[in-house]
C-alpha cells in the first residue's frame, strides 16, 4: 500500500440549507443562537418540531484510491460534487463522515487570485499569493521570472494590482498558481481564464503540468476530449455519488449516454435530481432567443428565455421551481420561481412538463452569467439543485449611451426613460 497517493474512504459531506434566513450572508448572530436555545431544547424533547433547515448531501459515500503518479480525471454535471471533493482533498473543508488519507504535499489550482491584495504591487502579490498556495520564498524567487513572463506583465510589476485591468490581474494570478510543484496536484479546469488567447495558453499549461514527470494529478474537467487525452482513468460523479470509475474511454462512453451537454442545453434522458429524490426530476434545460432558437449570446435589448423540462412522479404541493442567475464573479443577480406567476399554490400533479421563463431585455448588464436551477419545498425539502448549469452572455450591441460607453457601476443596466424640459 506504500505507493498510494490518495485513499478516500466512505467520504460524505452535507450542508445545511437554512430556510429561516435566505440569501447570501446568512450567518447567525449570538442573539439568534441564544433566542433559539429554548426552542431547540424543547424541540429535542417534543416529536413534532418543524424542520427549519434541510440537509443537502453534496457527496455521499465516496471511496476510491489513487496510486502515485496516476492521472485521474473527474467528470460529472455541475453540482455533482466535483468541487466539494477537490475542496476536501485540499483540506479547505472537512468531510461530514469518512475521510481522505493523503500521502504527500498537495497543491491546488482551484481558485485564481485568492489572497491578492489590491494595494500591493504585482511583484509583492506574486510572493504573497505564492506563499498562500504553499510555495516557499526560495521557490518563488527561483520561478519569479518564469511567472512574470508567462503572465506578460513585465512592465507593470511595480504597479499596485488595483490599477491592473481585469485581464492582467487574472493572467498574473493564473501564472502564480500554474507554477506550483506539489507531489499531488488538484486542477479544476474552470480555471482557464482571461481572453480566448490566454485561455488557450492556460489550458495548454495545465495539460503540460498534468502530463509531467510522474506526478499524481486529479483533473476536473468538462471537456471530454481533454480528459480522454490526459487521463488514463476517469471517475464520474453523479448527484454526489460515484457513478463509474475505470478506464477513461469506458467511463466517458457511459457518461455520454446519460448526459448530453451542449453549450446552450443540457439533457438528462433518465432525469436529474438530488440524491434520494424521486418525486421530481429535471430532464432538460436550455437557453433560447426571442424567436425560440437555441443560443448562448443574447443582445442587450432582447428578452432571454430559459426553458426547463421536468417530470413529476409523485404529486407535490408547496413546491417551487425556478432559476438563479449569477454574474461570473459569483454576485447573485436575481432569483425567480414559477410560483411567482404560473403555479401560485405550488401544486404539482404527476406528468411531464415544459416551462419557459422570459426575462425582459434592456435589463442585464453586458457580460457573462451563469444559470442555476432550483426546485424545492421551502422549509421542507430540497428536491433539485444544480449550480451553474449553463452559461450565457449578454452582448452590448444596441446598448444605450454607446457613444460614451465607459464601464458603469452596478449589477444591472436597466434601460431608463429620461424627461427633459428647457426652462
Amino acid at each position, binding site marked *: 500500500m506504500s505507493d498510494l497517493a490518495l485513499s478516500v474512504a466512505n467520504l460524505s459531506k452535507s450542508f445545511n440549507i437554512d430556510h429561516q434566513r435566505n440569501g447570501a450572508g446568512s*450567518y447567525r*448572530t*449570538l442573539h439568534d443562537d441564544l433566542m433559539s436555545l429554548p426552542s431547540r431544547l424543547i424541540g429535542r424533547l417534543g416529536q413534532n418540531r418543524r424542520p427549519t433547515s434541510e440537509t443537502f448531501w453534496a457527496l455521499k459515500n465516496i471511496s476510491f484510491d489513487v496510486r502515485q503518479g496516476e492521472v485521474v480525471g473527474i467528470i460529472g454535471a455541475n453540482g455533482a460534487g466535483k468541487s466539494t471533493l477537490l475542496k476536501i482533498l*485540499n483540506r*479547505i473543508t*472537512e468531510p461530514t463522515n469518512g475521510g481522505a488519507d493523503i500521502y504527500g504535499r498537495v497543491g*491546488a489550482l482551484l481558485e485564481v487570485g485568492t*489572497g491578492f491584495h489590491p*494595494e500591493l504591487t504585482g511583484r509583492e502579490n506574486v510572493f504573497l499569493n505564492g506563499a498562500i498556495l504553499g510555495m*516557499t520564498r526560495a521557490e518563488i524567487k527561483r520561478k519569479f521570472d518564469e511567472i512574470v513572463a508567462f503572465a506578460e506583465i513585465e512592465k507593470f510589476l511595480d504597479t499596485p494590482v488595483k490599477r491592473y485591468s481585469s485581464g492582467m490581474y487574472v493572467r498574473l494570478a493564473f501564472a502564480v498558481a500554474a507554477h506550483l510543484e506539489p507531489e499531488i496536484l488538484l486542477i479544476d479546469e474552470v480555471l482557464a481564464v482571461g481572453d480566448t488567447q490566454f485561455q488557450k495558453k492556460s489550458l495548454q499549461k495545465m495539460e503540460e503540468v498534468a502530463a509531467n514527470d510522474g506526478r499524481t494529478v486529479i483533473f476536473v474537467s468538462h471537456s471530454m476530449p481533454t480528459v480522454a487525452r490526459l487521463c488514463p482513468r476517469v471517475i464520474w460523479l453523479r448527484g454526489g455519488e460515484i457513478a463509474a470509475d475505470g478506464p477513461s474511454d469506458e467511463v466517458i462512453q457511459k457518461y455520454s449516454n446519460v448526459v448530453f451537454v451542449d453549450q446552450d442545453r443540457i439533457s438528462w434522458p433518465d432525469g436529474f435530481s438530488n440524491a434520494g429524490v424521486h418525486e421530481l426530476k429535471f430532464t432538460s434545460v436550455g437557453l433560447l432567443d426571442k424567436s425560440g432558437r437555441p443560443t448562448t449570446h443574447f443582445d442587450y435589448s432582447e428578452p432571454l428565455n430559459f426553458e426547463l423540462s421536468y417530470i413529476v412522479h409523485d404529486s407535490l404541493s408547496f413546491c417551487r421551481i425556478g432559476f438563479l442567475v449569477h454574474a461570473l464573479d459569483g454576485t447573485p443577480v436575481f432569483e425567480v420561481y414559477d410560483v411567482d406567476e404560473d403555479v401560485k399554490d405550488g401544486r404539482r400533479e404527476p406528468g411531464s412538463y415544459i416551462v419557459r421563463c422570459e426575462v425582459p431585455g434592456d435589463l442585464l448588464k453586458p457580460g457573462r452569467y451563469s444559470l442555476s436551477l432550483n426546485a424545492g419545498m421551502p422549509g421542507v425539502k430540497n428536491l433539485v439543485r444544480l449550480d451553474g448549469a449553463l452559461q450565457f452572455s449578454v452582448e452590448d450591441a444596441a446598448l444605450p449611451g454607446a457613444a460614451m460607453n465607459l464601464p458603469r457601476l452596478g449589477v444591472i443596466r436597466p434601460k431608463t426613460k429620461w424627461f427633459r424640459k428647457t426652462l
Partner: protein
Amino acid sequence: MNLRELWSYRDLLWILVERNIKVIYKQTALGMAWVALQPLIAATILAVIAGRVAKLPSDGVPHLLFIFCGLTIWNYFSQTAQRSSTSLVNNSQLVSKVYFPRMLIPLSHTFSTLVDFAVTLVMVFIFMAIYHVPPTFHLLAIPGFLFLTAITSTGVALWFSALSVKYRDCNYALPLLLQVWMWASAIIYPTSMIDSPRWRLLSALNPVVGFVEGFRWCVIGRSALNSTMFWITVAMSIFTLLTGAFFFRRVERRFADII
C-alpha cells in the same frame, strides 16, 4: 497542536506580516507618522485629565511619561487583539478557498503590530531624555514583558477571531470590552494607589496590569509589581494563550463552511 506544520509555513507567516505592515498606512498622507501621533495625542489628553482634573498620583514621575508608558504596552495589546480579531472575516476569501494553517492570519498581526510598538518605544526613550529619567538595567526586561503581552493578546485574538467567524457580534463586543479593559488596567493610575494588598493581588488577575506595571518598572525604575503579582500575570498570560489556541483548533475545521 500542530507546531511542526505552523513552522513549515513560516515563509507565509512572514509574508503576511509584511503585507499587514505595507498595507495599513498605504494611501495616507502622513503614513507611519500616524503610529507616533496616535499615542502622543491620546497620552496628552489622558495626562491632562489625570494630572490636572482628577489629580491622580503617578509614582513620582511626570504624568505624560507615566501615561505614555502605560499606553505603549496597552496600544500594542489592544491593536493586536483588535486587528487580528477581524482578520479571519476580512480574509474570508482565503479561508474558504485555500488551505493553510488558519492560525497564521491572526498570528501575523501579533508580529506586524510590533512595528507600531517599536516606534512608540523610541518615543518612550525620547521622553526619558526630556524628563531626565536615568536609564537602568531594568530596561533589559522590556522584551520579557513584551513577550508576555504578545502571547496574551494572541490568546485574546484567537478567541475573538474564531468566534467572529460564527458570530459577527464580536466585531462590536471587542471594542467595548477593550475600552472597559483599558480603564481596569492601571494606565492612568498606578497600582500603588490601591491600598489593600489583597485587592492588588486580585487586580493582577487582569494580566495587562502586570504588563503595564512591569513596563513602568523597566522605564521608571519603581512599581507596585511584586513577585506574587508577577507570577499571577505569567500564569494568566499562558492560560489565555492556551485556551485561545485550544478553542481555535477546535472550531477551525468548520471555518470554511460557515464564514
